[in-house]
C-alpha cells in the first residue's frame, strides 16, 4: 500500500531503534505519555515497545474519546432513544460503552430501540432525509479532529431545511485535558509519578495546529512532539522527545510535518467557531469536570442541538466501584494494576471505559500486551 507501508518499514525501524539506544542516558528513566489512543494502538499493534530500550516507557493517556465519555452522557443518549423514540445514529465504538444499570446502547438496541451504527455524519444526514417523520439524533463525540465534520453536518442540515435532525454534542478539547492531567494533585504533589514528555496527537493538530501547545510546554516545562500515527512516526517522535530531555529543552516540535502546520486548518477552525462555542466545563470520565474542555452548539443553531430540542434531564452517574480508569487515564496506574482487569473486566464485558474502545489503554493491554505479563512474572521469579 503506497504512502502507508513506507511508514511501517522494518529497516528504518531498526535504524531508528539503534539511534535511540545510542542517544539515551542509561542512568535515567524516560516516561513519555502518548495522549491519544491512536498512538497506543500503533505501539501495541506493531510491537513498538519491543524496539525501545528498557528505560523508555510509554504511558497511555486519556486520548480516546469513547473512553473519556462519562456514564451520564450515555444514559442521556439512552433516554433519547428509549423515551423520545428518536433514531440515534452513533459510531460503532459507543455501542458497548457501559451505562448506568448495566445498560449499553447495544443492549437497548436489542430491546428494540432504534440505534443505528454509522461511519460518518453524512450517513446520519441521509437517515434524517429518508425518515422525515422521525427525529434523528447524531451522537457526536471526539476531539478536534471529528468536530469539523459535525459542524459541516449542522450547516448542511440548516441549508437543506432539515427539520428532524439534531446533534447530541460531546466534542472535547485536547489541550485542556493535557493541562488538567499535569495540574492534577496526584502528579503535582505526590511526585511519585512523573511524565517527562508528551506525544501530541497529530490528527488533532491537523486542525488546531501545533501552536496551542506552546503555552503548555513553557508553563509545565515539558517537551511536546506532534507525532504521526504510523509506528515510524512514533519512534521518530520518541527520539525527538529523548533529545529534548537530554538537552534540557521543553519545546513544541512537529514530527508530522507532512500534514501539520503551526497554525493548523484555519477554514476548519472558522467553521467550528461559527457553529459551536466553549462550555464552561465538561465532565470527563476519569478526570472529572475539566474547565473549558468541551464544546456545545451555539444558540443560533439551537434547533439542531439535541440537548435543547428534547426535554431530557442530564443526570450525574457514578462509575463502577473498584475501576481504576480514572488513574489509568492519567497515567498514574497501569491497566494491570487494576483489580478488575482481566478478572471481571474484559473486552467482552467491559466495566470501565478504558476497556471499551480498542483504543482504550486496558483494551490495548488486553489484546496486544497481555502475553508480556506472564513472561515478566517468570523473569521476576527467576
Amino acid at each position, binding site marked *: 500500500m503506497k504512502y502507508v507501508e513506507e511508514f511501517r518499514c522494518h529497516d528504518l525501524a531498526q535504524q531508528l531503534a539503534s539511534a535511540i539506544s545510542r542517544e539515551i542516558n542509561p542512568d535515567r528513566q524516560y516516561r513519555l505519555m502518548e495522549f491519544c489512543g491512536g498512538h497506543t494502538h500503533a505501539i501495541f499493534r506493531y510491537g513498538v515497545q*519491543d524496539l525501545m530500550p528498557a528505560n523508555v516507557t510509554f504511558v497511555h493517556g486519556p486520548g480516546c474519546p469513547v473512553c473519556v465519555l462519562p456514564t451520564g452522557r450515555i444514559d442521556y443518549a439512552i433516554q433519547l432513544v428509549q423515551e423520545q423514540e428518536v433514531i440515534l445514529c452513533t459510531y460503532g465504538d459507543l455501542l458497548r460503552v457501559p451505562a448506568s444499570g448495566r445498560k449499553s446502547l447495544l443492549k437497548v438496541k436489542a430491546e428494540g430501540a432504534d440505534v443505528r451504527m454509522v461511519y460518518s455524519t453524512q450517513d446520519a444526514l441521509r437517515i434524517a432525509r429518508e425518515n422525515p417523520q422521525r427525529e434523528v439524533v447524531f451522537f457526536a463525540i471526539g476531539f478536534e479532529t471529528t468536530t469539523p465534520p459535525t459542524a459541516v453536518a449542522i450547516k448542511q442540515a440548516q441549508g437543506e431545511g432539515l427539520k428532524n435532525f439534531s446533534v447530541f454534542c460531546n466534542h472535547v478539547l485536547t489541550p485542556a485535558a493535557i493541562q488538567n492531567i499535569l495540574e492534577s494533585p496526584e502528579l503535582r504533589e505526590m511526585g511519585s509519578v512523573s511524565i517527562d514528555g508528551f506525544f501530541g496527537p497529530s490528527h488533532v493538530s491537523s486542525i488546531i495546529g501545533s501552536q496551542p501547545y506552546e503555552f503548555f510546554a513553557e508553563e509545565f516545562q515539558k517537551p511536546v512532539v506532534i507525532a504521526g500515527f504510523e509506528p515510524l512516526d512514533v519512534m521518530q517522535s520518541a527520539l525527538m522527545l529523548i533529545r529534548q530531555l537530554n538537552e534540557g529543552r521543553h519545546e513544541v516540535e512537529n514530527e508530522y510535518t507532512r500534514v501539520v502546520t503551526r497554525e493548523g486548518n484555519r477554514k476548519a477552525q472558522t467553521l467550528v467557531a461559527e457553529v459551536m462555542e466553549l462550555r464552561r466545563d465538561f465532565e470527563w470520565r476519569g478526570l472529572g469536570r475539566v474547565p473549558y474542555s468541551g464544546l456545545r452548539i451555539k444558540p443560533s443553531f439551537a434547533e439542531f442541538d439535541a440537548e435543547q430540542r428534547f426535554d431530557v434531564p442530564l443526570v450525574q452517574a457514578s462509575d463502577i466501584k473498584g475501576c481504576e480508569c480514572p488513574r489509568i487515564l492519567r497515567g498514574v496506574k497501569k491497566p494491570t494494576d487494576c483489580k478488575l482487569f482481566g478478572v471481571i473486566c474484559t473486552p467482552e464485558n467491559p466495566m470501565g471505559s478504558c476497556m471499551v474502545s480498542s483504543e482504550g489503554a486496558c483494551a490495548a493491554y488486553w489484546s496486544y500486551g497481555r502475553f508480556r505479563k506472564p513472561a515478566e512474572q517468570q523473569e521476576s521469579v527467576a
Partner: protein
Amino acid sequence: MTNLKRFPMRLNTRDGAVDMTHGSGGRAMAQLIEELFVKHFDNELLRQANDQAAFDVSAGRMVMSTDGHVISPLFFPGGDIGSLSVHGTINDVAMSGAKPLYLSAGFILEEGIALADLEKIVISMGRAAGAAGVPIVTGDTKVVEKGKADKVFITTTGVGVVPEGVNISGNRAQAGDAILVNGSIGDHGVAIMSSRENLQFETTIESDSAALHTLVADMVAVASGIHCLRDPTRGGLATTLNELAQQSQVGMKLSETSIPIKPAVAAACELLGLDPLYVANEGKLICICAQQDAQGLLEVMQAHPLGREAAIIGEVVEDQNAFVQMQTRFGGSRVVDWLAGEQLPRIC
C-alpha cells in the same frame, strides 16, 4: 380431453412474490417446490418426493455438520446466499478430512420476497451443489410474516465419510507443528462490506466463497497425518487460530510477512479501521501438520486452483496460556487475540 396440467399457471418468477400460501402446505407450496427447488436442485433422491432422502453408505466414520446463513446483502461480489450456503456446509464437513456426500436445505422465507430473487438464489445453489458434486437431497420451506425474517434465511446440513486412517481434530495441534493457509485472507468480509448500502466503496475484490473439499482430498491423499483443518470464517484467521490454540492447549507464533493479504483488502481495511486478521473468509482453510509434512502439503496446495497462494504462516509452540502471537513486519511482537464484540454483523 387433453391432460390437465397440475399447475396451469407457471410460478410467476418475473414479478411475483412469496406470500403466506407458499408455506401453508397447500397447492402453492407444492408448486414452489416443484417449479423451483426440484427443478434446480434436480437429482434422483429429491425427485422421489419423500419427506426424507434414503441412501446407502459405505462402512467407516461419518461426519455431519449444519450451518445457518443470514447474510445481508443476499447478493454480493463473488457470490450470493445460495452458493454460500452450499460452500459453507461442504467446507464444514470437509474440515474433518471427509468426502462430503449429501446436503439438505431449509429455507425460511419472509413474506414479500421477490420470486425472481428466490429463483436466482435457488439456481445459484443448484449450480454450486452440481459443481461440487454434492447433491441437495432433501429440504424444507417455511414462510413467515413480513418483518419476522430478513428476506431469506437458509440452513444447510451435510453428511460425509472420512477416509480410513484420517484423524483430523481441533485438539491435535502439537508444539513444533507448522501452520498453513491456502491463500489470501479477508476477501469475503471486504467484498460484503463494499456492497453494504451504508458503506459503499468501489473495489474489485470478490468474495472467496468456494467449496474446499477437492483441495482437502488432495491434501489428505499426500499427508493422512494432518492434525487440524478449519475454515476461518467469522472472526477471521485470528479467531480460528485462537480456537485451535485453546482446544489443543498450545500457543502459536505467526510471521506477519508470510500471511497472504491482497493489497486491495489491506487498503480497504486500512480505510475502515479493520484488522484483516479478523475479517471473514469463505474459501480458506487453516492446516496444522507435523513439520516434516509441511513442504509436501504446501506443494500439493499450490498445485490446486484454490491453493495457488498457499503459504506457511507460522508454527505451534508450547504455551500454557494458549496465546497466539505474531512477529510483526515492523520488527516487534504482539498478541493476536480473540475478536471482541463483532467487527461487522451478518456476513454469512
